[in-house]
């Protein structure tokens, strides 16, 4: 089940020396932030402070973090409704994220968008999209624009295994390659759509990697629970993109620890599956690696405490933020700030 996926195309590093301590700490911090913000989000559900739905990426943090660590300022992220992590790793504020989940004024979207649409354009987080597949074509547009403007920006577009079976996936991949766009498609294969195993509805074993050839792309599979591995592939693909050599498609094998969304207890999963993946939980794995590479337990504890403190602070600020006022309900439909459709 949770067997280490085969690594293709990039050499299988035996040590992690190539990552270096600065990046390694950064990748750990990013994973910690994702984990603790989402655990907090889960608590807030239970307290009924989050009203709508919400899709946690618990267990999948290494992917967001690996890319977050590799991306540069100005690069673009496009992600899905399961996009808290991808938005956070670009630097969006925890208060903004948690506030949005609670529908407060301080939310990234002022309460208009909600959990499924987190966006922070100033950080390059170009939106979370809740209709499966839609953001792949949009992401290629951002990449096209960067190519046209010769801005050297790379676009990274995250999506799930289930997304590989919808038409927009196909159209976007083909056009990206034909136009040699600087875009990286990252399929987070967590084995499930909502509740249905991806293997039951897909004609190939690796829903993204086995289709790369259909777009003239290399087939790349990466261990999505290892932030270093993700980071390496991210770096390589971003370099390729920046050098004008076109898109990449990366399939990262991973698992979500919680159900699909707030309402889902996840009881369609076979006995032992979650447990076996919890043994490869990216957070404790990465924590051990830090220690292996010489960080002291105290240093690690301090990092953890710092993140938790910041999450707690953000939570309090967000909780005390008022709900949006009636006035904002009708703003920002149009570029002039209004919602007027007649004179």
């Amino acid at each position: 089940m949770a067997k280490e996926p085969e690594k293709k195309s990039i050499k299988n590093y035996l040590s992690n020396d190539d990552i270096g301590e600065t990046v390694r700490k950064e990748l750990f911090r990013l994973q910690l932030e994702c984990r603790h913000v989402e655990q907090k989000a889960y608590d807030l559900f239970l307290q009924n402070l989050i009203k709508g739905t919400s899709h946690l990426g618990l267990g999948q943090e290494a992917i967001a973090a690996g890319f977050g660590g590799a991306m540069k300022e100005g690069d673009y992220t496009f992600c899905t409704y399961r996009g808290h992590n991808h938005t956070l790793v670009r630097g969006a504020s925890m208060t903004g994220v948690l506030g949005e989940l609670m529908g407060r004024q301080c939310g990234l979207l002022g309460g208009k968008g909600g959990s499924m649409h987190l966006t922070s354009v100033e950080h390059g987080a170009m939106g979370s999209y809740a209709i499966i597949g839609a953001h792949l074509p949009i992401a290629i547009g951002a990449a096209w624009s960067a190519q046209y403007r010769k801005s050297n920006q790379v676009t990274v577009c995250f999506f799930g295994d289930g997304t590989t079976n919808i038409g927009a996936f196909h159209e976007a991949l083909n056009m990206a390659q034909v136009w040699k766009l600087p875009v990286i498609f990252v399929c987070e294969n967590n084995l499930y759509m909502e509740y249905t195993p991806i293997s039951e509805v897909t004609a190939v074993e690796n829903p993204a990697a086995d289709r790369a050839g259909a777009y003239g792309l290399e087939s790349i599979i990466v261990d999505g629970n290892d932030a270093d591995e993700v980071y390496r592939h991210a770096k390589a693909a971003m370099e390729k993109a920046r050098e004008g050599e076109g898109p990449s498609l990366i399939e990262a094998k991973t698992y979500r620890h919680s159900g699909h969304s707030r309402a889902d207890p996840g009881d369609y999963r076979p006995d032992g599956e979650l447990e076996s993946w919890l043994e490869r939980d990216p957070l404790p794995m990465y924590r051990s690696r830090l220690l292996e590479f010489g960080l002291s337990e105290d240093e690690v504890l301090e990092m953890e405490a710092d993140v938790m403190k910041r999450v707690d602070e953000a939570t309090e600020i967000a909780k005390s933020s008022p709900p949006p006022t009636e006035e904002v309900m009708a703003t920002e439909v149009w570029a002039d700030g209004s919602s007027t459709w007649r004179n």
Partner: protein
Amino acid sequence: MAELTYREAVADGIRQEMKRDENVVFLGEDIAAAGGVFKTTVGLLDEFGPIRVRDTPISEQAILGAAMGAAMTGLRPIAEIMFSDFLAVCWDIVANQMAKARYMTDGQISVPLVVRTANGGGSRFGAQHSQSVENWAMAIPGIKVVAPSSPADVKGLLAAAIRDDNPVLFFEQKSLYAIKGTVPDGEHIEELGKSKVLRQGSDVTIVALALMVPRALEAADRLQEIDGISATVIDVRSLVPLDTSTILSEVSRTGRMITVEENPRLCGWGAELSSIVAEEMFFDLDGPIVRITTPHIPLASADHLEDLMIPSVDRIYEEVRKSMN
């Protein structure tokens, strides 16, 4: 009479028809093993097996295309599109294919199928999971459009839709899934294309659909109690075919019509109805036709904002009262 939720009535309607006719098959995302993301289809896989109740990939065009092809060749498929917003990803199959196949082939092709979908707001899901899009469907010649407001209607109208020889879009209001109501025992089937007068009054006719129906009824009670305004409330139930005869006859009795729509304003079904009344009953009207709608704005996610947008009992009450002056 059994007491069922709106949610349970869905499976009940499907079950009734699948038992009756083995050509009825059912497909969609997470509808089989998981019983649907809204738990509307629990038990159907166990009862009818994986050949008749099929989980699909996330491929809405393939889902509706497969339903259409099967309908053209002898089956009577029911397809689920999880949220009605997702009709946009397979709109071609709805608007250009299933709606037009019979006419374009001069009747050679029949498309007896039902597309069920969870429609509407109130769940704080935000702009891409909360839309009321029954007017999208109403604008397309060749599709029937149904939107029930009660468990009994869910079952009866769904059964009728399944037996109908035309493509039917069946809009379930997701905020109504938890409501309860009595449903007749034994086989239950309603007729498509009939509105229902739920309350008869003399001063004004309030015409509502789906989630707006219980709200209109409550507003009507309040109007009676507080202001002595006596309102008829009609549940449209079916937008295509449209039961203009019931609606026009009530409006001619009361001399006034107010529509209550959940969809954003422009080109909603209330506009169509208003235009019919303004053309055919102009001289019978005692006052303007008023439309109460969600403003023409994408739906916000925060509960405070969403509640301000979708017509509430308070707003219906106020606007009807104001219009009577």
